[in-house]
């Protein structure tokens, strides 16, 4: 899994490529935690390059979302591949974490 972090005008944009599984997800959680501790509250996660996600990946997204809720921040997901979107839907996560078709669309709601 690779993370690419960019500070955009309305949010921190994190581009995730590869796989979010039990081995790699802790790194995502740690990096987002670090960015939150630095004072960032709005995040758009670009998942166009994410090929696979397991419950460990969902867990790290949820942990991040809960942290942000406590700080009145937001996390939005964008450009999910079909297989990844399905995992979010099966788990019911698609109703609690905002999912957008594109990064541009996610940025407009912030």
């Amino acid at each position, binding site marked *: 899994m690779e993370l690419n972090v960019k500070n955009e005008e309305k949010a921190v944009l994190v581009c995730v490529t590869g796989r979010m*599984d*039990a*081995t790699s997800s802790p790194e995502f959680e740690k990096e987002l935690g670090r960015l939150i501790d630095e004072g960032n509250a709005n995040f758009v996660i670009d998942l166009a390059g994410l090929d*696979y996600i*397991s*419950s*460990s990946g*969902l*867990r790290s997204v*949820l*942990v991040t*979302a*809960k942290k942000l*809720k406590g700080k009145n921040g937001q996390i939005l997901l964008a450009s999910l591949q*079909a*297989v990844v979107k*399905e*995992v979010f839907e*099966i*788990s*019911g996560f698609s*109703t*609690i*974490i905002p999912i957008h078709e594109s990064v541009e669309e996610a940025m407009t709601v912030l």
Partner: protein
Amino acid sequence: MHFMKSLELTAIIENLDQFISFVHACSEECGFEGKRAMAIELAVEEALVNIFSYAYPEGGGQVKMCCTLNNGKEFVIEISDEGIPFDVLSRSDPDTTADIGDRAIGGLGIFFIKKVADDVRYSRNNDINILTIVFLV
């Protein structure tokens, strides 16, 4: 086509990638691709992570994965460990309608296995936990 391959490694997270590569190669050889191949990897990861996390409280146990193609119709993955008795299927499903505040962290792994596989069975024989996950070709 007769197919049967197995892999046995220590039950630690560092070995997850090796198990996933193994099952990916087996499923590919049996004709699975795309979304279904991914579903197989997902079920296997979830099953293994549970074993890595809970089977051996003292650490240092083994986990064995055996992949078989039955009658050209069923791709059967048997995952066995000698850890503490643990019927993964006895856990109740997480509340997938809970909102962010109430949503529990954890519990999804087993739920996914049940959702993506065509059949899942648990048994315990001679102090060995056996989880059998079936995907129809």
